Structure formats: structure tokens, C-alpha cells
């Protein structure tokens, strides 16, 4: 079945962006987070340079709290595709024992994600980090450029963004400065799923519904992925048919009750959804303007 017209246009636009990045930056890197958006991002990157190989490595920031299945999926995929995968964990955070439970989501996210990302980008002197963020995800993302300039401290200045016209991307940076490139800027969640179906793109099965051990906390379903999750006295994990709309650190990512066991089911569910996918992201709702604040500090 040929791609619908709107997906064909989005696909071509993303491929165009990938080629600009590869041609204009000295050391680009693809931020691979193992989620569905990353899967589409990687798929498009492979297409952009086919039959050649990816002209940049993949970088995964591992907080050590990802779902076990995500890590297994990551390693298998990197081996299958023959891509160069860099995994980085913040060694300082690890030594301090930072974790999402005792340290809280804000501290954990800052040290194990934001600081870790900056460490990796600095260590490898990457001048462009390609990410899978979409403008429909969140209000401050809706204002962000495809090529989003970051100063020497990786900070985003929303009031001083470079104008971006047509498909003429300004990729000029000075030493130490960088750009976050977002080839999926104009895709929506539904576009992502429809494209995954059409292109048969492998995804982590956590997106598909099946019985999983969960506990319910403040109305959120948290999956007990390993024995590090402390359980309350009366808290007993019970199997529920659930799936995830987004994937992150397991204690910070809530599951949703769903029977969607196939991509087609997910598309129908997404099309009818009444809540945004980020609702399950506990870190986004910490405070007002949360995402904009994190991005100013260097978060993706």
C-alpha cells in the first residue's frame, strides 16, 4: 500500500533535513531513546543515506532506569542494522546514587538525563544532536526551530531563535556551540503510528497491550520492571492489561489500560484519544512551563 500523500511529504521533509545535517555539520550524532519516535527517526535516517551507511553514530543516554526490554531491544537493533552505538551514563550521578525514587524526578532528570547528555556531547565534541521531538508534543516545542541553536552551555534562548524560512536551514555554529536538529518537527503522534504501520518499523513491545505487573499510585499505573521499585506495605503488584504511550525511566512512566495489542489497534486508539501522550510523563507536570525551563537548561 503506497504511503498516504501527507506521510510522503513528511517523510521527504525529514530525509531532506537529515541530509542537510550530515552535509553541513562536522560531527553530528543521532539521539536514540529507543521509543517509537526514535524508531521512526532511525528508519528515516537509514532511508536518507541508502544504500550508504549512516554517516553518524547513535547516542543513548542510559539513566540505568529504563525498562529492561528497552535495553535488550536497543542492543539487538544496533547489531541488526550494523550502526555505531554510543551509550553514556553520568558517572557522577551513578556514584552519588541518584535515582528517580529517592532523589525525585526533577533531580534525577536533571543529573541523569540533562547533565549526562551535555557530558556526552562535550566529550565527543558533537556539534549537532539529532532528536525525535515533535512540535505537537508540547507548547514550547511548538515554537522551536527544526535546527535549534544552543550556545556553548547547551542553553536554548526561545526569544532569540534564528528565523527559519523555506527549507533553508542555517547550520553555522562556532566551536563549542551546537544545534539540536528535529527532523520530526512536523509529525503528529498519529502520523508516527501510521508510518510505523506502513513501513513495518520494529518497536519495543511495551507499546502493545498485554498483562503486566503494575501498582497504582495517585491514579497512575507504574509497572514493576525490577526489584528496585520500593513497594508500600499494602502494595501488591497485580497483572493488568496495559501498554505505554511513551517510554522513559520506568518509575516515571505511567502505563495506560488498553487492549490495543497491534499497531492497527494503537492507531484507532490514538485517533480517538482524549488525552495527550505526555500525560503519562511524570516529569513534564512538575511545574508550569516545565518543558521550556528544562530546555533552557539544555534538556532535549
Amino acid at each position: 500500500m503506497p504511503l498516504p500523500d501527507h506521510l510522503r511529504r513528511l517523510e521527504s521533509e525529514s530525509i531532506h533535513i537529515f541530509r542537510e545535517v550530515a552535509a553541513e555539520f562536522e560531527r553530528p550524532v543521532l539521539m536514540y531513546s529507543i521509543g517509537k519516535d526514535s524508531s521512526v527517526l532511525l528508519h528515516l535516517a537509514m532511508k536518507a543515506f541508502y544504500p550508504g551507511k549512516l554517516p553518524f553514530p547513535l547516542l543513548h543516554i542510559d539513566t540505568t532506569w529504563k525498562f529492561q526490554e528497552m535495553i535488550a531491544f536497543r542492543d539487538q537493533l544496533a547489531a541488526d542494522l550494523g550502526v555505531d552505538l554510543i551509550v553514556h551514563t553520568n558517572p557522577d550521578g551513578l556514584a552519588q546514587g541518584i535515582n528517580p525514587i529517592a532523589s525525585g524526578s526533577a533531580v534525577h532528570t536533571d543529573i541523569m538525563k540533562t547533565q549526562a547528555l551535555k557530558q556526552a556531547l562535550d566529550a565527543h565534541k558533537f556539534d549537532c544532536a539529532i532528536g525525535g521531538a515533535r512540535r505537537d508534543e508540547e507548547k514550547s516545542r511548538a515554537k522551536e526551530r527544526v535546527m535549534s541553536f544552543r550556545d556553548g552551555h547547551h542553553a536554548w534562548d526561545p526569544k532569540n531563535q534564528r528565523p527559519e524560512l523555506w527549507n533553508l536551514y542555517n547550520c553555522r555554529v562556532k566551536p563549542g556551540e551546537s544545534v539540536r536538529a528535529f527532523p520530526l518537527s512536523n509529525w503528529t503522534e498519529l502520523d508516527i503510528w501510521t508510518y510505523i504501520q506502513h513501513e513495518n518499523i520494529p518497536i519495543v513491545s511495551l507499546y502493545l497491550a498485554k498483562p503486566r505487573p503494575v501498582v497504582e499510585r495517585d491514579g497512575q499505573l507504574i509497572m514493576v520492571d525490577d526489584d528496585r521499585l520500593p513497594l508500600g506495605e499494602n502494595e501488591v503488584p497485580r497483572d493488568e492489561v496495559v501498554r505505554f504511550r511513551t517510554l522513559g525511566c520506568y518509575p516515571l512512566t505511567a502505563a495506560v489500560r488498553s487492549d490495543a495489542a497491534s499497531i492497527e489497534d494503537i492507531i484507532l486508539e490514538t485517533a480517538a484519544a482524549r488525552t495527550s501522550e505526555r500525560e503519562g510523563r511524570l516529569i513534564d507536570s512538575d511545574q508550569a512551563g516545565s518543558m521550556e525551563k528544562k530546555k533552557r537548561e539544555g534538556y532535549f
Partner: protein
Amino acid sequence: MGDQATLAPQRSLLRFFTCGSVDDGKSSLIGRLLVDTKGVFDDQSVALAADSRKYGTVADGLDLALLVDGLQAEREQGITIDVAYRFFATPARNFIVADTPGHEQYTRNMATGASTAALAVILIDARKGVVTQTHRHSYIARLLGIRQVLVAVNKMDLVDYDQNVFNAIAANYQNFAMDLKIDDVKAIPVSALHGDNVCIPSANMPWYTGPTVLEHLETAPDTVPTPARGFRLPVQWVNRPNLDFRGFSGTVVGADVKVGDPVIVEPAGTASQITEIVSANGVRDVAYPGDAVTVRLADEIDVSRGDVLHHANAPMEITDQVQAHLIWMSREPMIPGRQYMIKIGSRTSAAWVSELKYVINVNTREHTAAKTLHLNEIAVCNLSLDRRIPCDAYADVPQTGAFILIDRTTNETAGAGMIDFGLRRADNLTRQSVSIDRAQRAAALGQRPSVLWFTGLSGAGKSTLANRVEEKLHAEGKRTYLLDGDNVRHGLNRDLGFTDADRVENIRRVGEVTKLMMDAGLIVLVSAISPFRSERDMARQLIDDGAFYEIFVDADLATCEARDRKGLYARARRGEIQNFTGVDSPYEPPLSPELRVDTTAIDPDEAAEQVLKLLTR
């Protein structure tokens, strides 16, 4: 997205942008489209309710504008600062809206939103009608190539849903749009606040039977129609995975490309043929505009990033000089002669403005001369590049006619432009050679062709003197022609006014015509105020050295004004004529004319004799 947005097998994508100021309810209109197509999720609605209480400008209920004003600063100040992109869908179509701020200081943001759009939604407050900013928004949209405009006449609830109010505004806009060559205008009466005619037909306006805003957006063409100029492929990336494969990657522009098509690689001009169109989904026979592909060529020729492939039958401009419309986007003003990086297609090189012709007032479209170009100003200029590059007029092929200028020190995107045409078009038009030249024509006439250029204030006596000189030359049997500035303005230059920019163009044309007449062997007399030194110098450069005589017909302003044979000074003083030289427009006297004639001291006969003496020197 919304539950009605289930999966039609063939969905299209319309990108449009909205403009209007905060008060017009632009963000409310987008908010309404999002809410009514269920493009807003429940948790976002909950957040919106909280935000509305905190920042909201609507007395009670949800402030839909807060859905789109995403930055903290915008929410606090209640204004839109930057372009926001929003998404919604119906069963027929996906939509990407660029929500752009409307104030004059955000012209660059509006141009940004318009650059990727196929349609503009322009908000008009029904209480105010077509206002200055409507002109500005429409002009910028058209400048960026948009020819479909949906005029949302908003706040109909505040004018009692009055049909006459709407009709008057719609008719007014229609007239003005025609003037701008915006050919597709749809006016719809709405109330964004209450949802009338946004997604649901209004019960309050039964007299309106046309489509709702959403219905119109669902059926409008999703691309900007451009003339079929043929296939182009700006090469982004040379794909060389191994010795057996060399492909050229880029996005197809302009027209389809098929295997077997003859192509030219520019700017080298090398010819070859498409042998394969490669994509990750297999080889293809044909690729369409917008497709990101990799093509292979029949010959082992040199092709690198920045080069452009085009169909052999669809040539491009290859030039190092273009005329362009330039939008300035930096706080640091543009200075002619200063070098910038120019990115056009996939090619980056050096460029500078060689001539800032005029700045366009975005509200009135008047032209004014300027030395520099400031933030949010739009100008027409000549641009020089450090090498010859392939390009097209923006009106023909936007993707190969658009460019950005990047500041070399700060790396900021300082300007964006659209090519009007390549200059030195003689280069690629190939000048037709003629076997009889100026010297032979002059010999046949038995005279030395020359130009007598009379410059001076209105009323200084230029025409009187030029006339007298021509009479005397004619009596001697010379072949002459007198080009009078006033007369030329009735014909050749009747499209020009009296702004500095138009005066410059007026003289440029007179100079070119003078040159042709001199080539024909004539002695040409030009009588024109020609107030600017640079243009008189330009005319001098067009003519061979030694054959150009600048005659400064000098009389002080008071004398000219006292003479006032045509009554023009009096009218200018009463303010009935604008840009009148000597009154409210400058005259730059020649610094070293071949002859200065003081008409307050000598009579025309005597002056004419002095002029004739020049020709016999």
C-alpha cells in the same frame, strides 16, 4: 487527534498561516479550530483552564489564545512573539498552522510562517474593517508567493451579525487584493470566540451560505501553483557507499524526473542522463516534486553538494548578479558592500548587496531610497555573488529562487530573499552580434555621435536651451534627437513616480535609450532634472568616454521659483505635489560638469553657442 479523524486512505496536508494582531482574535480562531476538531486533549484543556485563570484575558471561560502562546513571556504579556506551529486533522486532511504575530516589528516572523504555507488566513476585525495591518499582512503573504487568502471577518457578534458590514469589508478587501494580484480570495464572516462559521455554520448569520473556515481549508489547493519550469535537483549529498555506486541525493523541485531524462549539471554545464532513481523502497521510474531521492547519472562527471541538476530542456539562470526582494531580520543593519554568506538551495557562498535600490513601506507599498536596511524592512536590491551560481526567479521556482543571508561573524540568519531575476542576462541570452556598428552608422551620417545632458532645477531653462541647441544643429544638417524628461514620463516612464527610487529608474531608462540613439549615430540632447549625481554618472558610464557632455543649467531656486512657468513650485509649496526637486526632494549639483550655464546671467542664444563650442573642441 480527534475521533472523527480516522484514517482515510489518501489524506492530504495543507500548510497555512494566520496573521492578525492580538486584538483580532487570531489565536482564538486557531484555538477554536483545534478545540472543534478535537485537536486539544483533555489534559491540555485542564491545563488551559488553569492558565486561563492565571493569565487569561477573557473575563470568564477558556482563553483559547493560551493554547497557542507557548512561551512563558508570551503568556505573561498576552502577546504572540514567535511563530508557533499547531496541528489538527479532519478525515480529509492534516493541517499544519503557522501562527504568526501581527505587529510590524514581527514582519520577519510572519515571513517565516508564510514561507512554508500554501494559504494565508488574514483576520479582520469587523468593527474596524480593512486597516493598515491588513495591507501589510497581505503584502507580505503575496511577497512570499501566496495567492490564496482566506479573509476571516471576525467579531461579527460585536456588529450584530450585520450582513452589510461584512459585505462592505469583503468588497473592500477584494479590490485591494486584485491590486496585489492575489487571485484567490474567500471572505467568511466569523465569531472565533463563539465558533460561528469556524467549524459549524452560524445560526446567527443565516444570510451567509458559503463554506465555514474549516470547510474552505479542507478543499483549498494544498500547493502554490507555479509555472511549469521543469525539473531541478539541488544536490545535497553525494552518496558513495562503494566503488560501484555513486548517487546524488536531493529533493526534486519544479517537475517530475524520469529515468532516461537528459540533464545538465550546473554551474559547470556538463550534460548527462538519469540512469536510475534510487530510494530505500526500491528503484523507481519517476520521481515527483517534493520527493527526496537519490539519482545516478550515465557519465562519470564531477558533481558535488551545491550543484544543481536540471532537465536539459529547462535551463536555469547561471549568474553572479541578481535583483531580489530582501527582508532584513537582524538588529544589525544591512550595509551595501558588506559580505554575507548566502545559502540558496544546498549551496553556500559569499554575497553582498551591490545596490540598495529602494525600501518598500510594507503598509503603503511606497518606495523610498535608503542607504542601509534595518530589522523588519523589505527592500529591492541588486545582489552580487563571488561566483556564478544556478538559480531561478522565485515566482518561477521558489525552491531555487529563495535564499537566506547569514552574518559572517555572528552566524545569525540576517536576511531572507527572493530572486526577481538574474542580472547581466545578456550572458545567457547571448547577445546578437550585428555587422554594422556605431562608427559605420556615424560615418554614413557624416557626424560624430554624442550626448548633451542638460541637468538642473525645474524652471532653470533646460528645455529652452536644449531646444535652441537642437535648432542650431539641425540648421547645420546634423541628425539629432531631443529626449525631454517630461515627455519621456508620458510614455516610456509613465509607470514611474517621483520617489528617489523612481527618479533613479527614470534616469536609468533615459540613459539606456540615449545610448541606443547614440549607437544609431545621432547627437542626442537630454533635458531632465536628473537630480542625483550617481545616476548622471551611471549615464556617463553607459556612453563612451569623450562623447558625454554634462551641462549644468544653473539658476538659483529663488529665480526658478519666481519664473515658475508651469506653476509647479506654487503647487509644491501648497503641498499638492510631493517629492518636488528643490522643495522637498534634493538636487545634487554637478561637481565637474563639461559646461555650466548661468541662465540668470546670459540669454539662451549665447548659452546655445557655448554648448555648440563643446562639440567642436
